[in-house]
């Protein structure tokens, strides 16, 4: 791995050049990402604080255990792992596009940008399926002595503690904030994926039109790439907080 060290003897702070040896736009993208990581961090930490402040919290392996076209098969973690791999792979194709950009190879950038855009679309489709599955699912819940059928929404959580009712085990309503945190944080992340996708599509069009060849560098693709990798980075932590632990 490159050390990132710069030769000695240059007066970096004497003006006229970036003391970080980085262009303004890239510095600002990095600082935006730092502030965005605090936004996501605040959401995830408030989720953790609420979860530790509750007497009962549903087991994620019990809530997220379905897979498209697999019916009621119990497959904890399977679908969300697929989503994780899709996002990691689209991150790889993005960094390969940046690599081709360094070599000023327009065809290569186009190829890898298309692959990245497809990866982003696949991730968003997976998320749409997962949300639909949760919002339209039906679970028996014991409410005021009567069994009702609930989906998982921002106000209803059918995954509470189990109790005996009429000779069989029925769930009671779980902590109400579960759905709120889940839909808000994965939704906020999904919104980032969506905006990253739009940025990537614009970068693809600009590459095709030859704008970056005229400009003489592909730094815009690099900046879009930073944003896209950040979306992947955040997903790693959302995956940790909501599904793994």
């Amino acid at each position, binding site marked *: *791995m*490159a050390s*990132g*060290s*710069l*030769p000695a003897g*240059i007066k970096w702070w004497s003006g006229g050049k*970036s*003391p*970080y*040896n*980085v*262009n303004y736009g890239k*510095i600002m993208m*990095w600082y935006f990402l*730092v502030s965005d*990581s605090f936004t996501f*961090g605040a959401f995830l*930490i408030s989720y*953790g*604080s*609420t979860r*530790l*402040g*509750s*007497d*009962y*919290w549903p*087991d994620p*392996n019990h809530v997220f255990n379905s897979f498209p076209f697999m019916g009621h098969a119990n497959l*904890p*973690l399977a679908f969300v792992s697929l989503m994780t*791999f899709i996002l*990691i*792979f689209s*991150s*790889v194709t993005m*960094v390969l596009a*940046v*690599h081709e950009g*360094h070599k000023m190879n327009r065809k290569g950038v186009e190829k890898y940008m298309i692959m990245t855009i497809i990866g982003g679309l696949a991730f968003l489709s997976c998320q749409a399926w997962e949300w639909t599955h949760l919002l339209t699912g039906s679970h028996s819940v014991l409410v005021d002595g009567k069994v009702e059928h609930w989906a998982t929404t921002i106000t209803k959580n059918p995954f*509470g*503690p189990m*109790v005996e009712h009429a000779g069989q085990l029925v769930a*009671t309503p779980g902590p109400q904030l579960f759905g709120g945190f889940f839909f808000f944080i994965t939704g906020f992340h999904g919104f980032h994926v969506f905006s990253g996708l739009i940025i990537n599509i614009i970068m693809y069009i600009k590459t095709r039109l030859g*704008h970056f060849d*005229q*400009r*003489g560098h592909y*730094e815009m693709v690099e900046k879009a*790439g930073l944003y896209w*990798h950040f979306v*992947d*980075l955040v997903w*790693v*932590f959302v*995956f*940790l907080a909501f599904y*793994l*632990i």
Partner: protein
Amino acid sequence: MSSFEVPSQITIHHEPAPNTKRIWRAFWILSVVTLGELALGLSIYNIHKGPNPSEMMVLFFKGVICILTLAKGYYIAWVFMHMGDESKLFRRSIVVPLLLFIWFIIAFLHDGNAYREARDSNAGEFKVIKNDVPAAVLERGQKD
């Protein structure tokens, strides 16, 4: 669009990386670490299903998963985002503010836990009556 020159703020240019070996290596590391996390996650699931779930064991596995996730974050930032190629000063200007997260996480998780303990023991100002879930059921539910 007419072509234009960006006034370069970069004094020393990096040579483009000769090949993509480093990228693919990071990809395989990320994949293997994710598979390891999945294995640990499924172990936690099976411990919970078992007759006597060991809280210590679950906590230990969750800690290992958190460390593996931090390793993944490092590879994404250092290789994919090329953080490892930037100057040391620039790297520090990103990483040092993020160190606030250490205190942020400790303080708020401790706060949530303290709130639950205070409420469950009816200590101090909190005189909240626990909801009508029977105590035996509460014990069966997973607390974390």
